[in-house]
């Protein structure tokens, strides 16, 4: 496992995402507030480019007609058959116990740590003032 610098935090605004390629894998990096999450860009159902789907809320209804929008912007909906997954965990909305998207550990590191540390950042220019998104693959 290596830690790869995939961009600066300013590359992805809150609510945004960026699809990066690390070790030949496409990974969607999602930003929710100031937290970052990584999911493989491949739907567990039939392999669609999952991370290009729509970012949506989780709609729950404790009983018919009683609707609550929760977890705004924390679900990703597959661009093909619309299965929804929790961006934070990769868990499927309908079948959380057995269907999951592979997720990757994503952290934010300060520029000076990145400049000195053991990171792989060949495609990213690192400056000490910036903060960087680091994904472990």
């Amino acid at each position, binding site marked *: 496992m290596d830690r790869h610098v995939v961009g600066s935090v300013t590359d992805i605004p809150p609510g945004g995402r960026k699809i990066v390629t690390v070790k030949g894998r496409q990974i969607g990096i999602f930003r929710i507030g100031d937290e970052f999450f990584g999911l493989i860009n491949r739907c567990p159902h039939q392999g669609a480019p999952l991370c290009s789907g729509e970012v949506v809320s989780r709609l729950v209804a404790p009983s018919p007609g009683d609707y609550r929008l929760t977890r705004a912007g924390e679900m990703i909906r597959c*661009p093909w058959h619309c299965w929804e997954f929790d961006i934070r965990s990769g868990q499927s909305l309908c079948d959380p116990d057995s269907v999951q998207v592979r997720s990757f550990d994503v952290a934010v590191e300060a520029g000076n740590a990145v400049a000195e540390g053991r990171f792989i950042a060949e495609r990213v220019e690192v400056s000490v003032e910036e903060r960087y998104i680091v994904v472990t693959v």
Partner: protein
Amino acid sequence: MNVTVLDRKPDRSAQTHMGFIDCDVHPYVKGPNDFDPFLSKRWLEHKRTIGGRSRQGLAKTPMYPRMSPGSGMRMDGWPKGGGHPGSDLPLMREQLLDLFDVAYGLLAPLVGGAGGERNLEFGAAMATAVNEWQLAHSCDPDPRLLGAVQINAEYTEAAIAEIEKRAGDRRFAQVNIPPRGLEPLGRRRYWPILQACAANGFPVSLHLGGTSGHASTGGGWPSFYHEEHPSYVQTMQTLVTSLVCEGVFEQIPNLKIVLVEGGFAWLPALCWRLDKHWKQLKAEVPHLKRAPSEYVHEHIWVTTQPIEEPERPEDMLSTLEWIGPDRVMFSTDYPHWDQDDPRYAFKIPLPDDWKRKIYRDNARALYTLD
């Protein structure tokens, strides 16, 4: 679901899906005027000033969920240069035809509104226009794409004329009839059309969709798209039952029917029920010389998408066996949101000879393709 599909590798055993025949591909118009070159002045003017009149009360209510914009399209199916999914041949090649080395793609154009048009003469004119459009925009530029003759089944003479006009043109593989008609398809009013299809060597494909003006379920109008989608199964069941019970297959012994996009796991159970009742009610339908299931097996083909995903994946094998692996044909439904990927659609490996039949040989035999 009791298995995680996350780690499933695509079914690469000999890549059997490669070179498959796709029995449901949707071409789409680039713009609203695509059909105009193929309409006479009289009908062009009609289209511009009066327009279509479908058999749907709330004409602007979309039939498909909006969560996949463009009437339920695969979100990565939108051409970068603009236009609608299915309208851009290079993208269709990239995402389907070349990607899987598709041998043939059977077109199901759900555009033009010919089949459900209430103004029958306009419906007939639009059917002709959509047929010409298929040739010009799909079949001629990419001969892998085979057209489906559009007709308006309520206008018998024009429908037969259109079928006869296309007969022998190998660019057309079959005749499309909307499954939701004014009456069940087995009724005598439709026999001359079905006869013309059979006489001219065209299987009849019934692709789900459209509106008939009747409630979409036998029990009334459903509230949700989630209910609407399985209601197409009821439609297909009605058609199969009607075609069998009316004696259509006795009357037209060489008629071949393809059920497209209506699922298939329900078919064995319907046959069991029809057979049971036939034993009890034979006196009412003495024209049925054989058990209903025999007519079904001889005359009806099904396409796979949207494929059933049984909780125990191995149940798929029994289902296919009950229907007969010689009657099932693979389809993607590209570029719709619920399309199936030939690599992943079956959640269980199929025996090799079944795969060859389902991905290729059944369609090749039915449509007499090389």
